């Protein structure tokens, strides 16, 4: 199943986000080996060079490291993983607030609505 990519943003960024998501959700455990570029490219149905670029960027950020001959691995640095999780959460929250603002809800009202929903569900 090709990855779900939208068609307005650079593909390599979306590939990075998907892999980050998979790391946070536990699809790839800390220290685990990532599939090869070609396997990932086939799975995502994207150009291998684009996948290569996404992985190089993840490597630059330190989230992934490569070992010369044996491939690429997920970092075992817990603080880095925690930071990534916080960053992703912050991004989702920002996007949510933006959407609510487009619907005409200022932040305080949005917060009140959130609390209401939490109460109803518990």
């Amino acid at each position: 199943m090709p990855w779900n990519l939208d068609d307005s943003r650079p593909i390599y960024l979306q590939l990075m986000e998907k892999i980050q998501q998979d790391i946070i959700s536990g699809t790839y455990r800390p220290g685990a080996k990532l599939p090869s570029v070609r396997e990932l490219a086939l799975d995502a149905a994207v150009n291998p060079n684009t996948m290569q670029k996404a992985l190089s960027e993840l490597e630059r950020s330190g989230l992934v490291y490569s070992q010369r001959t044996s491939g690429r691995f997920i970092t075992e640095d817990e603080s880095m993983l925690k930071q990534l999780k916080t960053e992703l959460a912050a991004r989702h929250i920002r996007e949510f607030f933006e959407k609510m603002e487009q619907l005409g809800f200022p932040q305080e009202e949005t917060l009140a609505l959130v609390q209401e929903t939490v109460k109803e569900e518990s």
Partner: protein
Amino acid sequence: MKPILECQGLSKQYNNTSCALDNLNLTLERGQIVGLLGPNGSGKTTLIKLINDLLTPTCGNVLIDGSRPGVESKKIVSYLPEHTYLDDSMKISELVTYFADFYENFITERAYTMLSDLGIDKNARLKTLSKGTKEKVQLILVMSRDALLYVLDEPIGGVDPAARDYILQTIINNYNENATILLSTHLIQDIENILDRVIFIRQGHLALNATVDEIRMEQGKSVDTLFREVFRC
């Protein structure tokens, strides 16, 4: 290393009034999948035929791996033409043998793997197959060569979406880091994610030469959307 394809001031005139290609300058590096895009009659097939020595330039040069098209370039270029040239009374297995005889870099095993993946009977004669299946057979033969430059003229036009996915997978899977694929198509959306770069041509001129992600980054839109805007009728 020399670029795999270089066009220098390349022009082709079929008659005195109009130019099919007009002073085209283009360089393709190795290891890329490149989409050749343009509306009908923009010069895509003319360019492809010039690369394959089926036409002679009116002026300018085409260089493949540094040399003019000819016997040597045909060893390293694998070409899927717009129309079939195969003898349709031949069996699929005979066509495979024919290609293996003809091209040193043809990999018979790869061809049979793809034929069986797509459920194509190797004992069938080409003429008994549907239009779409014939197209698949031709593409399989072309992709089974270990070439440096694949030139595919409308490779996925006539095949169903499921087979299209398989063919795109095959392209991702088989192409090696030194090979370049140049393919013309109108089905931009289907192939956009597997392209490195796109080339737009309009009335024989180069209108755009950029990577897919450059376009998305700078324009905030897909190649498909950009194409529809640039070439709006």
